[in-house]
C-alpha cells in the first residue's frame, strides 16, 4: 500500500503541491485527474523519486522514499508523459539498459513483455525512428521488466491508436490483478474503462478521493467531464 502524508512541494517559489494526503490500496487502478497545471505531474514525480518533497512522507510497503530510497524504488516503476527514451539506442539496447540498472531481468519476463507490447518488429530499431505509439510502448515495457508492485503512468494512452489503446487497457487490467497502478489522464473514456478509484486534484490540493462507482453516482449522467467544469486551470 502506498501512503502519502502531508506532502508539499514548491517549484520556483510556487507551491505546486499543498499538504497532499491519500492512500493507494493494493491491486487497484487509480486515476489521477486534474486540469493542466493542477500538480499531477509534480505529484507523480514526487511518488517516483524524481523530485524530493519539501515536506511530508511517501511510504510504499513500509519503505519511505526519503529514508529507504533504494528499496522504495525497487518496487516502483514510472513512465513519464514524454517517455524518456535514449534516442540513439535500439529498443533492445534500451530495455537491456533499464533492466541492467535494476539488477538484470529474467529472459522469460523479457520475452513476455516484448511480446505483450508487440515490440518484436521494432526490437532492433533505434528509439529515434519509432512512432509515438511504439515509443510509449517501449517506455512501458522498460517499466514492466522489473515487475513493479506499483506502476505510475503519466498519460499512458496518448498517441496510441484505438487498437493499441484497447490492447494496453487489457494489459494494465491484467497487471492490476496482482499489483497497483496509478495513472494520470485527461481522457475520461480511459477513466471509465480502467479506474476503480479516482483522485481529483486542483491547485495542488486533493479535492476528491473516492471509488469510481461512488463518483459516477453523483456526477450527472455518469459524465466525468463535468468534474472539470468547476475547476480553474489552463484548460479553461
Amino acid at each position, binding site marked *: 500500500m502506498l501512503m502519502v502524508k502531508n506532502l508539499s512541494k*514548491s*517549484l*520556483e*517559489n510556487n507551491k505546486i503541491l499543498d499538504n497532499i494526503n491519500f492512500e493507494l490500496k493494493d491491486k487497484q487502478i487509480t486515476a489521477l485527474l486534474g486540469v493542466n497545471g493542477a500538480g499531477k505531474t509534480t505529484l507523480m*514525480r514526487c511518488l*517516483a*523519486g*524524481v*523530485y*524530493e518533497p*519539501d515536506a511530508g512522507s511517501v511510504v510504499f510497503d513500509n519503505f519511505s522514499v526519503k529514508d529507504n*530510497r*533504494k*528499496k*522504495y*524504488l*525497487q518496487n*516502483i*516503476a*514510472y513512465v*513519464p508523459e*514524454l*517517455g*524518456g*527514451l*535514449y*534516442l*540513439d*539506442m535500439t529498443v533492445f539496447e534500451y530495455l537491456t*539498459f*533499464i533492466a*541492467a*540498472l*535494476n*539488477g538484470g531481468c529474467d529472459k522469460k519476463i523479457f520475452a513476455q513483455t516484448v511480446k505483450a507490447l508487440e515490440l518484436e518488429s521494432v526490437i532492433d530499431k533505434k528509439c529515434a525512428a519509432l512512432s509515438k505509439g511504439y515509443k510509449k510502448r517501449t*517506455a512501458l515495457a*522498460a517499466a514492466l521488466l522489473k515487475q513493479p508492485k506499483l506502476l505510475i503512468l503519466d498519460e499512458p494512452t496518448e498517441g496510441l491508436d484505438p487498437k493499441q489503446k484497447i490492447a494496453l487497457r487489457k494489459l494494465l487490467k491484467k497487471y492490476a490483478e496482482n499489483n497497483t497502478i496509478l495513472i494520470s489522464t485527461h481522457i475520461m473514456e480511459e477513466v471509465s474503462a480502467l479506474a476503480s478509484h479516482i483522485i481529483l486534484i486542483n491547485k495542488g490540493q486533493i479535492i476528491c478521493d473516492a471509488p469510481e462507482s461512488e463518483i459516477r453516482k453523483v456526477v450527472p449522467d455518469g459524465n466525468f467531464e463535468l468534474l472539470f467544469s468547476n475547476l480553474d486551470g489552463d484548460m479553461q
Partner: protein
Amino acid sequence: MRDFVNNMIVFFLKEFKSFFQNKMIYVLLPIYLVINFTTVIYFSDFLSVASSSMQQFFLLQPRIFLIFVPALTMRIWVEEYKNNTWEILLSQPISIAAAVIGKFLAVWAVTGIMLLSSTVLWGITAWFVGCDNVWVLTNYLMTFLIIGIMCAVSAWAGALCFNYVGAFLLSWAFLAILFAVNFDNLINKIMAVFVDNFNARVFSDFAEIAASLVSGEIKTAFIFYAIALIAAALWANVVAVEYKRSEK
C-alpha cells in the same frame, strides 16, 4: 557496493558506446590529430629535434584539450535533461554517484583514445631520431591524469546547464579558471585557517603543472592533488544532479 559497481559499469558502457553511435568521436578524432601535427610541426623543428618536439607536444596537450573536453562533456547531462531521460534515471533504484562516475569514466576513456591516437607521433620520433621512451610514456600517463581532472571539472559544469551551448561555455570557463588559479596561494589560504605559517610549494598553476611534468619533476603530490581534484569535482557533480532533484 556490488550494485554500485555494476551500475557504474552499465553507465560507463552506455555512455562510451554513445560517443561512437552518434559519430562524435569520428569528427573530433581527425580534428585532434590535425591540430596536434600542425602545432608540433609549426612550433618546433620536428624531425631534427625530436625530443624537444615531444616536449612541445606534451606542453600543448592541456591547451588543446581545453576545447575537446567541453565538446565531449557538454552532452552527457544536457542530453538527459533534453530527452527527459533524467526522470527515468532518478526513478531507478540506483545511486546518482554511480551514474556520475560511470559517465566521467566514459568521457575520460574517449580522451584516452584520442591521446592514444597521437602515439603515431611518438612512433615517428622513435623510428627516425630515437627518444627516451620511459620519459615519453610517463608524460603520456601524467597528461592523461591532467585530462582526467579537466573531464571531471567539465562534466560538473555540464550538469549545471540545460543546453549544449551553455554547457560548452560554462565548461570552458571552469577549465579556464582551473588554468588561471594559483594553487599554492589557494592551498595556503585554505590551510591558514587550520595551520599557522603553512606554505605549500606544490605548483603555482595548471600550466606549470604540465611544464614541471615535462621537465621531469614529477611530484607525488601532483598525483594526490589530481585524485583529490577529480574526487571533489565528481562530488560537486553529484550535488548538482541531486540539487535538480530537490529543486524548489
